[in-house]
């Protein structure tokens, strides 16, 4: 998953489907166009997802790929807010992520918090 990985350049005509799932069970399907960040498609659908920098630096838009091929999303700019351990665990940055095939994503502000657990706490360190 990086911006140089242009392997599946030939997209099926039209959009892919990204299903957004919140912690409270709410879901919403959005249809990002090719070359359109998932965040932009979610905004068109009034999903109200959190975001900040919109260029892959801040992590506010962090989501987690629930299923779908790990190749189903490509970052159009380096996802600087994510470390290798986050990328390995399927975290993505929706402001710079383009969908290559259908996928399901955990979204909402709690997803970023998962990637940076409270340090030094006895419980819940992970």
């Amino acid at each position, binding site marked *: 998953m990086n911006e140089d990985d242009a392997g599946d350049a030939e997209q099926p005509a039209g959009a892919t489907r990204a299903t957004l799932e*919140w912690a409270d069970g709410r879901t919403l399907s959005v249809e990002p166009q090719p070359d359109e960040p998932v965040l932009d498609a979610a905004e068109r659908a009034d999903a*109200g997802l*959190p*975001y*900040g*920098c*919109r*260029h*892959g*630096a*801040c*992590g*506010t838009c*962090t989501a987690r790929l629930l299923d779908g091929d790990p190749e189903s999303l490509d970052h159009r*700019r*380096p996802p*600087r*807010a*994510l*470390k290798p351990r986050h990328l390995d665990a399927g975290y993505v940055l929706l402001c710079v992520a383009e969908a290559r095939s259908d996928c399901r994503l955990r979204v*909402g*502000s709690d997803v*970023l*918090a998962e*990637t*940076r*657990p*409270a*340090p*030094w*706490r*006895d*419980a819940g360190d992970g």
Partner: protein
Amino acid sequence: MSDTQQPGSGTHGDSHADHDHGAEGPGYETPQAAIEESEPEKTAYVMGLYTGTDVDAPDFVAVVDIDPDSGDYGEVVDRVEMPNRGDELHHFGWNACSSSCHVGGLERRHLLVPGQRSSRIHVIDTAERRRPELAEVIEPDEVFDHDLSAPHTVHCIPDGEILISMLGDADGDLPGGFLSVNDEFEVQGRWDPPGEIEMNYDFWYQPRQNVMISSEWAAPKTYYPGFDLEDVEAGNYGQRLQVWDWEDGTVEQTLDLGEEGQLPLEVRFLHSPVSTHGYVGAALSSNVFHFAEDGGRYRAEKAIDVEAREHDDWDMPMPGLVTDLLVSMDDRYLFFSNWLHGDVRMYDVSDPANPRFVDRVWAGGHFGPRHPTGEDDRAVVGGPQMLQLSLDGERLYWTTSLFSSWDEQFYPEEGDRGSVMLKADVDPRHGQMELDEEFLVDFGGMPHGPARAHEIRWPDGDCTSDVWQ
């Protein structure tokens, strides 16, 4: 309370217009003049934010009524909403302050309000101080064009120019730098030579000494998502101060504060323009460093060490986390917040290199009372953080949010319940402070949902922005 109690232009206190220093510019001739001539603050501007939560609303500048004679005392009476979501409003500053006291025609009237995450810079016109309005927006691309991002501290500099510390490059990586904006709120470009520094955070200049000192947080991509111990081990957080030649805009000296000086954040010179003394709070190491010139060179030494404390939920002693500090306008007292512990401390700095502890107040945090203003009042679910002091030094106010992603780690309830603004009454004569249990501004009850609250400013200047030539 209405605007009619303010002077017509709404940009100066009545006193400024009357005072007789033969100048037409904003502010006060000396720090002592600010104390004598200012009126007790009646209005506060406070950063309010939703970025990083699921509230689908933009951040805002809150107008808070702090006039004890008003029926709306302690209420948010107006909110200037930003045109976009996701800014993370954080710090802000005036277009002009006492450093331009002798520049005719300039007014302390426009607030520059950067979005820390968005890199968008808003200009708010406070001509009507209870009804400020968004006047201009500098879009992120205009900032990225200069290979800068993540605007933080705004200081006006003499002659109407404005300088903003920028913590990253256009990718949110290092190096940062400084952005210069003119008095028409047009981006002029980069102030410093590219590559002069790596990390950046806060800065303060002391023009008569031809010096500026800047501090270090980390690359935006490092601190934006949250605190990470891995980054401490990797040396990704700052621990240095840069001492600049103010006129040349070049670094003359780098002071490495070492292990005990990790995360040096807010920088405060004493207000007297002849002083070279000042302080910086090293948040992570929880030490306050004193700096001063000594034989033509600046030196910094640890002056206050906050002891880490054992806490049942922590597997290592909890640091205080000194996240903000300020110096009273008369340069007699230093106040700082221990955001994790939950206390605000007051030190006598009449001997600046040797601060003397005089008093403190506990409110929230991990060791202070959860209902500091009374059991019937709402819980305080963060710790004391951004401070602001009245010009006369008798009222200290603070808010409780540090930064959305860091709040989530250390005070996860704050996003759901919102911040508060609290106040202590200070007795400078006797070196005492006491929590005002009658005062609590609740950001939990905002129209779109609970909001965080960050930096505080007064319309007529304050202890963390006014500088004298």
